[in-house]
């Protein structure tokens, strides 16, 4: 008798969950087309989906989840490698702890591909034991402690690139001189672009954004040098590149080998991403500390910007 009642109670719940699942996969299908960070998340705009789930959670647990969803763009390295044979929950957890320990020691600011960075690292070969390199971030990747970024600059008409491991103990300071995004997720085509697009003075002054403003997207279109190139750029759907000026056969070949259906492959999407629920779990673990660090950084910044008035006359 009791069992039957329970069953009656449970059924609608299960049905609701099933419905939710269908809904979520549908919204997923809708949003994959313009998903920018496909690697990072199964759902590119899961706000609607999450709010539904949150309501349910609130009913059950009676508490609110406060982890903002931008976390996965600001701290992408906290998300583990989605490949199943690389997953190990214990190792991931330990890595996250190590990353937080490192972040307590040095300030690793928010930056994106296309931001201009200045990195100071200790270097036993330099006479002053510290080297500073300025450049534009052309690639960012890796998961956990293996997170890396590449910065590029043209110094004395010579293109130079530096590969940094973000959590390397050798790095002493990471400054963001210009915080902005570009139209593409990787700027590797700057290697084949005219040098003025990756030239930044080594004594560049930091530019500050007004507090609370959104990160600007630089819509600059880069002009590439004539072929030969390092990669077949015409085959990659690049948004930040001017007309390549190739003969017609190149575009025909690019169209022939293109795989436009791949972005609708839900299974591939699932395999290459961390589900939104899991992301929430991960960031719930570290968010309070990260937020604390951010607050202290802001306070320090304000302190630093205060300039002591000089005596006149």
């Amino acid at each position, binding site marked *: 008798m009791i069992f039957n009642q329970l069953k009656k109670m449970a059924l609608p719940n299960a049905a609701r969950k099933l419905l939710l699942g269908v809904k979520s996969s549908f919204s997923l299908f809708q949003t994959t087309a313009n998903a920018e960070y496909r690697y990072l998340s199964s759902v590119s705009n899961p706000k609607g989906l999450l709010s539904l789930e949150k309501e349910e959670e609130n009913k059950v647990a009676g508490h609110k989840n406060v982890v903002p969803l931008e976390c996965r763009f600001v701290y992408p390295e906290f998300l583990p490698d989605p490949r199943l044979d690389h997953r190990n929950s214990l190792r991931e957890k330990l890595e996250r702890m190590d990353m937080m320990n490192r972040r307590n020691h040095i300030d690793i600011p928010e930056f994106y591909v296309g931001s201009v960075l200045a990195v100071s*690292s200790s*270097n*036993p*070969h*330099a006479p002053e034991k510290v*080297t500073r*390199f300025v450049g534009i971030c052309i690639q960012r990747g890796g998961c956990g402690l293996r997170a*890396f970024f590449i910065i590029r600059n043209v*110094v*004395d*008409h*010579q*293109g*130079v*690139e*530096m*590969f*940094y*491991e973000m959590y*390397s103990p*050798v790095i002493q300071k990471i400054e963001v001189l210009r915080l902005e995004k570009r139209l593409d997720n990787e700027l590797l085509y700057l*290697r084949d672009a005219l040098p003025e697009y990756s030239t930044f003075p080594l004594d560049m002054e930091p530019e500050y954004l007004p507090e609370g403003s959104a990160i600007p997207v630089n819509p600059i279109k880069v002009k590439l040098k004539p072929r030969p190139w390092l990669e077949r750029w015409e085959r990659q759907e690049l948004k930040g590149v001017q007309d390549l000026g190739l003969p017609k056969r190149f575009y025909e070949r690019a169209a022939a080998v293109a795989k436009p259906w791949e972005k609708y492959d839900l299974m591939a999407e699932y395999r290459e991403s961390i589900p939104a629920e899991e992301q929430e779990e991960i960031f719930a673990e570290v968010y309070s500390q990260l937020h604390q660090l951010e607050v202290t950084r802001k306070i320090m910044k304000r302190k630093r910007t205060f300039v002591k008035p000089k005596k006149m006359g």
Partner: protein
Amino acid sequence: MALSMWRKLPKLMCVGHGFHTSPAYSHIIKLTRLRVVDNSEIGKRAMAEGKPPKCIHVYNKKGVGTIGDKVLLAIKGEKKKAIIVGVKQNQPALSPKFDSNNVVLVDDNGTPLGTRIHVPIPQVLRTILKEKNVVKGADYTKLIALASRFV
């Protein structure tokens, strides 16, 4: 379908020079073209004429040159020795990767032929060249003194 593919294949093969199935390693090996970055007379002329020198030997056990290795060059019909001061190949963390394979011409004693180097040079080179010095023999550290900038 398969038949048409086979018909296409020899056509692709005869393209030869531009046809690759694997990415380039950018190794400095024998017959690699290099860029002379000092202001020595022979180096300047070779670069200006559009005939960059070819590497004809790498003086290490691997046969693939990296930063600080000595190479033998064929430059303007002559044989000259040079030190590699920047490579295009992918580099480990914290060491610079350049857009071209740069060399500085030296003579047998390690004295550079030019008087200036007009591109940045990796900091590691200081230590590497110091280690490669031979007592009362080749002294490569003179090259470091010519550098205008380090990265």
